[in-house]
């Protein structure tokens, strides 16, 4: 009888309504904003279909849910890490439709129908992806927290070089990029390693690239 749902107001709804007051008093941040908007009773939710590591799944999420939180909190794929949650550290890097992105800066609802590959989809402890094996061999980590993002990013970097996508260190952007240590360092700059394992990470990527070319 004392269940909050009986009176039609959830604790979360109350919190949201309270927080909504700030939005009403805030002035518009750009010309495209209009008059203040009444706070929402309950946060909107939407269904979203994702294919994660080859497996189709359907979720219903609060529209605010990032792709990162959908993976970690809804699908319990906790290999993908939350570092800064602002696109600055790269710990949340996953591949969406074959391209690496920061999963913290994307909403789950924006990925309806997309295919997502996380670190869990690259390899398993029994059957490591060549990039995972190279990171182990070259000690490309210390605490390991940034490592899933580093590995997802590194796999994508090799694809990007192969696809001819130019980088900032190219002498001639019209030419096809060549694999080099400078290219790895530039292309991996969106993945921060606070332990500073960079030189070993570069060695691991170099080996994985060579193995694939062979």
């Amino acid at each position, binding site marked *: 009888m004392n269940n909050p749902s009986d009176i039609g107001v959830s604790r979360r709804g109350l919190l949201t309504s309270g927080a*909504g007051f700030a939005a009403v008093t805030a002035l518009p941040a*750009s*010309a495209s*904003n209009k008059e*203040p908007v009444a706070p929402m009773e309950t946060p909107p939710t939407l269904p979203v279909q994702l294919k994660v590591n080859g497996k189709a799944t359907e979720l219903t999420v609060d*529209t605010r849910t990032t792709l990162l939180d959908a993976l970690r909190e809804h699908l319990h794929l906790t290999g993908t890490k939350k570092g800064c949650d602002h696109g600055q550290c790269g710990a949340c890097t996953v591949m969406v439709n074959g391209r690496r992105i920061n999963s913290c800066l994307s909403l789950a609802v924006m990925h309806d129908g997309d295919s997502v590959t996380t670190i869990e989809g690259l390899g398993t402890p029994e059957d490591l992806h060549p990039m995972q094996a190279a990171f182990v061999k070259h000690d490309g980590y210390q605490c390991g927290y940034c490592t899933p993002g580093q590995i997802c*990013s590194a796999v994508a*970097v090799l694809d990007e070089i192969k696809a001819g996508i130019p980088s900032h260190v190219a002498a001639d*952007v019209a030419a096809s990029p060549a694999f080099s240590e400078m290219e790895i360092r530039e292309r991996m700059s969106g993945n921060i390693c606070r332990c500073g394992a960079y030189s070993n990470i570069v060695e691991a990527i170099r080996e994985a690239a060579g193995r694939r070319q062979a």
Partner: protein
Amino acid sequence: MKAFHYTRASSPADAAALAAKTPGAKFIAGGTNLLDLMKLEIETPAHLIDVNKLALDRIEETSDGGLRIGALVRNTDLAADKRVRRDYAVLTRAIVAGASGQLRNKATTAGNLLQRTRCPYFYDPNQPCNKRKPGSGCAAIGGFSRQLAVIGTSKACIATYPGDMAIAMRLLDATVETVKPDGSTRKIAIADFHRLPGDTPHIDNTLQNGELITAVTLPKPLGGKHFYHKVRDRASYAFALVSVAAVVQKDGTGRVAFGGMAHKPWRVEAAEAALPKGAAATARIAFAGATPTHDNAFKLQLAERTLAAVLHEARG
């Protein structure tokens, strides 16, 4: 993050109409800037209109020998386009000088033009900021202003436009194509797209309520040698202190635009006539009337020296 409703747009005109009639609506494409600001509750849209499924992701040749770049073309794809790399290398160079590989895979052509300032006081809700909260004051003036604007500033705001791509777009005289809520279309010269702060720094650009960018067009190629030199505190993945976009012809004439200096890409056509005379003569005209702070006066010398390096390389 504040709760918001979410709708996928079905056509550009419908998206514009919906945005105009929906209170608190904003478009979302890549989301790499907007979601960051929403997490900090600096942006608090009540409704997001997702434009990602609109067919605005192609790069086409125009009848006058230029390129029409769809609003949703990702930064990576624009930088990697063979025609852009060959004929508009300054644009490729500017794009790959910005952000990280992950962000460039998501960020769009239109969204990049709309990137908001990275002024630290804009990002800190505990500080006054006329751009974030009009009328609250500017903590950057008299604060830590090393990264901020040196020209075109006002008493209300000294923020910079932070991006790289738009500096090259300004150099190339791009045109921004839009659709308005009534379905009509408009073309805005890139020179008229970004604003100076004046006494309304909360307005970044000249888009109207609900107006949606559909494409950016480039005129036919300029030829010449293309440069984008970006000077920053790290070798990669950092915003510009100063950047110089330039196209220099064999006879030493050319064009130059600067990033990191103002509230918009900074190009002074009258200064370009001085390019054959060198960087000092050009910078003198380009930055006449500059209003640097104690912290960022170095940018004027840095911009001149970066331009000198570009002109030296152009002669080589």
